[in-house]
């Protein structure tokens, strides 16, 4: 049986289209990473801060940082021959011409110092900024924005209450006071998860849907079905094909993600920030910082996202398989899957704004995989539920199993012409 599965896998990996796409996708991801790498040197500041002052931002470490910056600003006064209060104010009154007069080394020094100042300023303001954050106000703003009413509005407010409790606890434990790349301007969280990881998911989906459709319909498309399904293994070969598809999926995800993340972490150094929390106040990109339901260091978030997305992709493989068994044609399968994926993703948008259906319909795999940067967070718009991801995967595992059962029973009995 292992031999059959291996021989099935071989059919995919011998397909030129498949290998071609894999190479194109890998290159594209590299390009995305390199294209965004112009500020990678600046990111070393965050690592440096965590290295020197410890990952946690405490009053003492902040004080120490402030002192050190003062010292360096003093050095600047010497270098420039004028009284410098902060790099920020110094640059403010500096003309381009004057700036050019300084050596590259000096410029670099100013720049580094300016960045440190920026980190310091953000860090110093955490407490006051967080004072102004209210989960209830956020929920109300969302209700306003989406014009929610009735049940839907109530659900959102209830969730906001739960999130408030979590938020208060977060403030107590100081989970948010950890060094990380500045959310503004770098948006590293969004870049990694929304741009890179989502690209990988998309590419992986294309590959696995192609592979699964190819394998499942292979005998019908090559007209070998009469031979294959009359052998000893017979129609059970479909089971082998499903296993082979899941295996191929695993290999694809591992390789694509492996290549891409290896490139990413080679370019962007996270050396001292692996343990920094996703809910860190520095990781504040837009109107709101990310607030995860659980304390999640970067490494844990990344791992969980990978595990979760991998599970979703496996489920997509199973769904593709079910479609392919039913329609027996790989192009139709691909097309139907694409439509299915898109409909699932847009479904919540068609729901009444007053009904809990609005939320119930978000419990689908497309919604989960399309927003990797918001996973496990409590403030991701309509998908803020604590167990949204886990529940979605559980529900769809059941759906996939039922689908599998249905199509296997159908295929067991169907006439093969």
């Amino acid at each position: 049986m292992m031999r059959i599965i291996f021989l099935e896998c071989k059919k995919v990996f011998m397909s030129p289209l498949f290998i071609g796409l894999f190479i194109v996708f890998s290159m594209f991801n590299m390009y995305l990473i390199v294209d965004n790498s112009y500020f990678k040197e600046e990111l070393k500041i965050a690592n440096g801060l965590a290295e020197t002052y410890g990952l946690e931002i405490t009053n003492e470490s902040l004080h120490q940082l402030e002192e050190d910056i003062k010292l360096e600003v003093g050095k600047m006064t010497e270098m420039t021959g004028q009284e410098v209060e902060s790099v920020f104010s110094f640059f403010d009154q500096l003309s381009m011409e004057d700036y050019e007069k300084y050596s590259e080394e000096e410029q670099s020094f100013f720049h580094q110092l300016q960045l440190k100042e920026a980190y310091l300023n953000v860090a110093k303001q955490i407490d006051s900024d967080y004072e102004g954050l209210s989960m209830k106000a956020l929920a109300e703003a969302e209700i306003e924005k989406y014009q929610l009413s009735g049940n839907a509005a109530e659900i959102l407010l209830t969730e906001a209450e739960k999130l408030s409790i979590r938020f208060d606890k977060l403030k107590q434990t100081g989970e948010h006071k950890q060094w990380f790349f500045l959310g503004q301007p770098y948006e590293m969280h969004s870049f990694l998860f929304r741009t890179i990881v989502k690209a990988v998911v998309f590419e992986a989906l294309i590959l696995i849907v192609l592979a699964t459709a190819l394998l499942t319909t292979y005998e019908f498309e090559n007209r070998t079905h009469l031979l294959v399904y009359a052998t000893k293994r017979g129609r059970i070969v479909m089971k082998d094909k499903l296993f082979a598809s899941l295996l191929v999926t695993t290999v694809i995800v591992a390789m694509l993600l492996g290549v891409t993340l290896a490139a990413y972490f080679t370019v962007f150094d996270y050396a001292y920030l692996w343990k920094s929390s996703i809910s860190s106040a520095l990781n504040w990109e837009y109107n709101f910082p990310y607030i995860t339901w659980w304390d999640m260091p970067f490494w844990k978030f990344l791992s969980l996202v990978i595990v979760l997305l991998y599970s979703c992709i496996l489920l997509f493989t199973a769904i593709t398989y079910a479609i392919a068994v039913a329609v027996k044609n790989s192009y139709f399968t691909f097309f139907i899957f694409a439509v299915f994926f898109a409909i699932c993703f847009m479904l919540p948008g068609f729901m009444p704004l007053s009904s809990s259906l609005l939320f119930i319909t978000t419990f689908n795999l497309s919604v989960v995989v399309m927003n990797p940067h918001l996973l496990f967070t409590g403030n991701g718009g309509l998908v803020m539920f604590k167990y949204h991801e886990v529940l979605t995967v559980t529900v769809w595992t059941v759906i996939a199993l039922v689908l599998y059962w249905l199509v296997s029973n159908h295929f067991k009995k169907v006439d093969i012409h």
Partner: protein
Amino acid sequence: MIVLKDVSKRYGDFTALHDINLEFTNGLYGLLAPNGAGKTTMIKMLATLMRPSGGEILYDGKDIFQMEETYRTLLGYLPQQFGFYKNYSPKQYLLYLAALKGIGKKEALVKIEELLEKVALPDVMNKKMKKFSGGMIQRVGIAQALLNDPKVLILDEPTAGLDPKERARFRHLLSELGRDRLVLVSTHIVSDIESIANEIVMIKNRQILYKDSVEKICQTLEGHVYETSIKYEELDAFRNRAILLSEKQEQGNTIVRFIHKGKPDVAWLPVTPQLEDVFLYEYRDDVDGEV
């Protein structure tokens, strides 16, 4: 032993086979009928690819659809039409099918070599099949059916695409195989099986017409088949008197072979009925352009 009990097959409203009752033991059976008679339909049911709409098919008393693997382990099957993996060599292709038939790799390699020898393809064992002619593909198909040394060998129009020399060799192979197993060969070409089949099964109007030895089937026309020489101009008039089986030109005259039931003309030469005669006679209303 395979038994078909009241087997029917319907495609939607269309009945392809109706209440078929048959028994097969070891030996070579020829399933002889024109195109569209239902040969492939019957064979696909025997290969468990389709289920009968009514009745049952038993192997040694057990329903073949319940036997599942146990039955298919014994089965060798060559479909009428089949594809192949274009970028595979016969060896790779047969190795894959061997895996599906539960044959170990080592054992399969030996068997594949032996079979490709048997169907005269040893030289192209490692060549990609997309360059193969129809006859070569057909021979790979025959080899495939024999991989698991089947107790039940079912071949659906196996001679299609083979040239006369290959046909002769194939007939020889078949009669050899028929000695110790059940071989069922469907065809619409009489000469394929006439000389080698132990029994001939003929289907007409969705039912079994004959299941008997060639001799017995021919006896049904005993004393009714004649040959005579007539002028070409008389041919049309002759058609109204008798059922013409064949005609051939000879020195300005036409020699006709025909069936006549009733008092014969003295000029007619009675001849021994051949299977071909029965075939032409029984299926005379079918469009026989393809025969």
